[in-house]
């Protein structure tokens, strides 16, 4: 009897492989998502000029001491417009500073975008060459990075922030980090 069980082995192996492949087809899995290697690492060094001459710029050292959300956006980016209203809700959190980095955007375009949709950011700076974005591992806009008090990246969102991501992941993490 036990010898016969060996004939079940191929069926079991098939079931195992089929299950594994089935998981790969799950609609919740985005195969184009590039996982960040920057999580739990210190933010890359940067020093970016402000969008408007009278406002402060932003450099990596400025991020120490408080929880911040760095949001890479551009006026030419359509999904940015979708996430933009949600940033105002997040901006109400007193423990959180939201800083915007305009990626490959002319100052006048970024300015027009914020004049049109409102400005949820504490600081808005320009990354015209897009090098700071590359140092963060950005490969498209929008992308958002949650930075803890010690200046470490704790969370990264590729693509627009959604209600589900904000409520389910971002807010609990912000609450934990600002304790």
């Amino acid at each position: 009897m036990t010898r016969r069980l060996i004939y079940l082995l191929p069926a079991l192996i098939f079931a195992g492989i089929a299950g594994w492949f089935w998981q790969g087809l799950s609609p919740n899995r985005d195969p184009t998502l590039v996982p960040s290697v920057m999580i739990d690492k210190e933010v890359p060094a940067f020093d970016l000029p402000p969008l408007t001459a009278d406002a402060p710029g932003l450099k990596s050292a400025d991020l120490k001491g408080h929880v911040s959300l760095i949001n890479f956006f551009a006026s030419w980016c359509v999904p940015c417009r979708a996430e933009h209203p949600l940033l105002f809700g997040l901006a109400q959190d007193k423990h959180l500073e939201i800083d915007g980095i305009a990626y490959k955007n002319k100052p006048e375009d970024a300015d027009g975008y914020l004049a049109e949709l409102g400005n949820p950011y504490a600081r808005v700076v320009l990354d015209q060459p897009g090098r700071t974005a590359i140092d963060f591992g950005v490969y498209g806009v929008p992308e958002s990075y949650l930075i803890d008090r010690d200046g470490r990246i704790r969370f990264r969102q590729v693509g627009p922030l959604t209600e589900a991501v904000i409520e389910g992941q971002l807010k609990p993490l912000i609450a934990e980090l600002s304790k």
Partner: protein
Amino acid sequence: MTARAVIGRAVASLALLLFAVNLAAAVEPSEMLKDPGLEARARAISQEIRCLVCQNQSIDDSNADLAHDLRVIVRERLTAGDSDRQVKDYLTARYGDFVLLDPPFRTKTLILWAGPAALLLLGIAIIAFAARRRRAVAAAPLDENERRRLAQLLDQSK
């Protein structure tokens, strides 16, 4: 065919050939380095770096903005005196192993690299095992009764 037509054809096919060779690359002349040795290394590295926007093209092939930026970075690093290894490390520090089109050998990629060899060895082992068993069965000689019956059958069929 006149000599002129022959030359015309030769030029046309040569142009076509050059075009075909150049078709895949997205490198713009303004990006290229003056030093042909460095440029050749930059091309070779670029062909192994994944464009993160299109994902199934190398940055050497892709017209995406980010691919252009990464091509320029590769050339900057080489000009600064980096080795090929260092240039790739610079990129993987930002984008992870995913940026390499050729996945490196890690514990995470063990199944990928060792899987086919392991399956081949398993297959050889199964075949060897089955062959040995078959030989063991075939080696049993006929006994006296069987041999007589076989002779009978052979006689009948004549």
